[in-house]
């Protein structure tokens, strides 16, 4: 899928009438990528690490730190081991997709840009009830918080919308606006199906493929791994190793690899959580350990960008228009 979208957008200056079938899961993704590319976003590919949310991607977490502008959009597979249901629940997955848009600084018309993306998906706001419902976001592991909304479509949450105020313990200036689409939910709505597994992934010349065809077995087996077979001892060790590696890399001023270790530690923690290996009291302590690392990475990243003279601030964006 990554390859296909790369081909589509290899010539982003060309304005073309898209023929994406938004009634398919992949068509929906293509449409969103096209729309946000047209708004000027860098279309990035998913991060190749296990993360719990698109926010973890360095394009969001690290790039929202410091004064440099950066706007991007990308699909991010998310893993939430405790949400696994062995493929039996039509609404819950331990592996699912988010479509993440980050705009820095947040433009004053960011809400309109978002609403226009829904119109592009064929959602008429004079037929459907679209609402911005207060929802303030806080990530204790990332030392981050922001204010914003859940977006409701006829009572269903389809997106989250956040103005980042703090990330990695650092104040966001300028502010990054983050929009996260829950792709499966949105697709279920557009395709009018009651089970994730019934979503049409594609319906092309080679036949129809469903979400269940692609991912059902994965849900069953990964749930078994998350809940039953993940090696607790090894995960604890892994957490400790990631922690010390990250600390060492921070000392060396290598913010990006240090941050990768944070994400790995965070995922190990999530797996331990799914294995019920961490007591209520311990839980808080582990979250604190991850946060300490995340904050140090944020600071190291900021320091490095500062040392480089915040190069993205010097880019004249108007030049090539």
């Amino acid at each position, binding site marked *: 899928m990554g390859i296909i979208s790369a081909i589509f957008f290899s010539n982003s200056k060309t304005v073309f009438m898209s023929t994406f079938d938004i009634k398919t899961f992949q068509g929906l993704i293509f449409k969103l990528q096209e729309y946000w590319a047209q708004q000027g976003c860098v279309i990035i590919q998913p991060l190749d690490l296990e993360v719990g949310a698109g926010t973890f991607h360095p394009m969001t977490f690290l790039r929202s730190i410091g004064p440099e502008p950066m706007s991007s959009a990308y699909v991010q597979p998310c893993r939430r081991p405790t949400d696994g249901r062995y493929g039996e629940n039509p609404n819950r997955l331990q592996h699912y997709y988010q479509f993440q848009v980050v705009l820095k600084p947040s433009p004053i018309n960011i809400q309109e840009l978002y609403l226009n993306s829904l119109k592009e998906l064929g959602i008429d706001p004079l037929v459907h009830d679209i609402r*911005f419902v207060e929802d303030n976001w806080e990530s204790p592991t990332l030392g981050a918080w922001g204010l914003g909304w859940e977006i409701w479509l006829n009572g269903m949450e389809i997106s989250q919308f956040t103005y980042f105020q703090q990330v990695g313990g650092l104040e966001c200036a300028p*502010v990054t606006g983050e929009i996260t689409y829950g792709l499966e939910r949105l697709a279920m709505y557009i395709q009018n199906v009651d089970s994730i597994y019934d979503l049409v992934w594609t319906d092309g010349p080679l036949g129809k493929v469903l979400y269940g065809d692609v991912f059902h077995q994965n849900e069953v087996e990964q749930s078994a791994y998350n809940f039953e077979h993940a090696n607790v001892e090894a995960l604890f060790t892994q957490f400790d190793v990631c922690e010390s590696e990250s600390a060492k890399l921070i000392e060396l001023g290598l913010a990006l690899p240090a941050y990768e270790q944070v994400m790995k530690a965070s995922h190990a923690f999530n797996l331990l959580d799914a294995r019920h290996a961490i007591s209520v009291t311990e839980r808080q302590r582990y979250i604190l350990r991850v946060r300490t690392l995340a904050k140090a990475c944020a600071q190291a990243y900021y320091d490095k960008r500062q040392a480089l003279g915040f190069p993205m601030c010097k880019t004249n964006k108007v030049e090539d228009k």
Partner: protein
Amino acid sequence: MSTNTLLIEIGTEELPPKALTKLATAFYHSICEQLNAASLSYSEAKWFASPRRLAVMVTALEQQQADKSVEKRGPAVNVAFDADGNATKAAQGWARSNGITVEQADRLTTDKGEWLLHKAIKPGQAVADLVPAMVRIALTKLPIPKPMRWGDSRIQFIRPVHTITMMFGADVIAGEILGVQSNNLLKGHRFHHQGDVVLDHADNYAEVLKQAYVIADFASRRQTIVDDVNAAAQAMNATALLDDELLDEVAGINEWPSVLVGSFDQGFLHVPAEPLIYSMKDHQKYFPAVDRNGQLLAKFIFVTNIESKDPQQIIHGNEKVIRPRLADAEFFFKTDKKQTLKSRLVSLDNVLFQKQLGTLKAKSERIADLSKHVAETLGADANNAYRAGLLSKTDLMTDMVLEFPQVQGTMGKYYAENDGEVSAVAQALEDQYRPRFSGDTLPEGVIGSSVAIADKVDTLVGIFGINQAPKGDKDPFALRRAAIGLIRIIIEKQLNLDITDLLAVSIASYGTKLINNNTAEDVIDFIMGRFRAYYQEQGISVDVIQAVLANKPTAPLDFDQRVKAVTHFRSLDEAQALAAANKRVGNILAKFDGELFNEFNLELASEPAELALAQAYSALNSELTPLFANKDYQQALTKLASLRAPVDEFFDNVMVMADDEAVKTNRLTLLSQLRASFFNVADISLLQ
């Protein structure tokens, strides 16, 4: 003086609905205060609030302040001129600062001397010149829970600001507020109106917005919702469950409300109503509906922000959202019932009540013991109380309560019934959290009361015991609510309990965990403070409460009887004089450092008024003893009131501080006994 209408609107992105009215009224109050302070009169001020705007309208506002004459006093004349009669530097400086010369200054002569004086007319300022600063001040004073920044601006507000509209009549008041230049343009409904709404005159604010599909007035929008929801309920022979908080919230997330009705599968009605209602209200902001018998219907009434071209699609969408939520509740109810509450007790060992105080299992065991003690004291079934206490927190481990925390206790009741627990025990599981808020119902049964009391005492003792008493607004364990609840249950259910006794049992149950050696005293003092709040809310005058508090009665019923007795006493003619006399006695005794006699000695008495008081008091004393024994405080105080005449006579005619040391001590002894009799009930000297 010409007048006109002032309109100020702050146009924003969607504001937090629960804070909306508080923000709008704070804005309105500040603008009104500032207009008043600026001596600008007006006929009426009104606030508006919707998801995307806060506004204030002021009608018949004076266009300009009246000119004001001001007088500024300068240096004294003897300082203003030197020996040669030339103006000093001080005088010149003062004159310059007022824009005049020393020669132009007037003189102010009083009996204390003569000063330079500057009389001037301060011209009144126009509304248009004053308003922008007033708006800025009002906005900085808003109670914003969490201010935010956006874009690359350093400006902070509730949510990003898009428009500032300030008009006086048909004229725009120019000004920059929160980084936005004011004009006469508003935003209409997000979807029903395209482009800007032009406001031609401040008077037309609500009207032009209505044309643009926005009901700007919060109260009328809320009323529209109430009326339409009720009408929708009536149409299906039902009653909507309206609650004020939800109505405020729904009115806060809609600008053009439109009411629709959805349904869900009848089968879900086998699940207890509470979690279903919670799902509908708290998650989805729906209004549930009940039939004539109060039975929940498989319907929900909800409010949308648009007049949809195809409402069926919105209904269908919402039905699709609520279905899995109700299915969750049904699933939890089914699976939770497979495991008894009793068997869940062990899992509470993994849940902390508080780090220093241990787990919820330990808390449950303490609650069980204390509930048993309370039930025994009250003559209720101690075994049931123990059992209910032990099970009290087990429903926290059920999936239903993990998912819907608001139904804690209630689900405990249902699951206990399912487990075959006796009904008093099941009911107690629900009762333990009562009263949950101000004005809430009390526990139904005595077992429920026992557990509710035990839970609250246990929390108070534990948290005070580790020195984490509430400070200011910070009361994370809701100890104030717990203490008020404790007082209410004991007084209003007429329970014969003494807090001191409950605290002793509770403190002992914590073993060595408590580090505060004054836990009992600290909790008592805290509870005394709640008594004050409890009675003040009932309109009991503060001096009565203080008179009783002086005595620190630790049995709430006893406290209550004293409050009633003192309130009655205060209404008697004799009260004021006796209060004054008690105060006087108190002052005299405070200065006396000798030792009083055990008894008043008749032989030392010489004055008739002294003898008369002693006899009257002694006669009364035999009547008082049984009254105090029976805690008949009202009767006792009424009897004591009869001493007013002899007390007055005594103070009018007897010299207390006699030269003879024995005579003096004897008189003080009489007064001290008298005061002690009153103090048996309360410190009467504190009555005003």
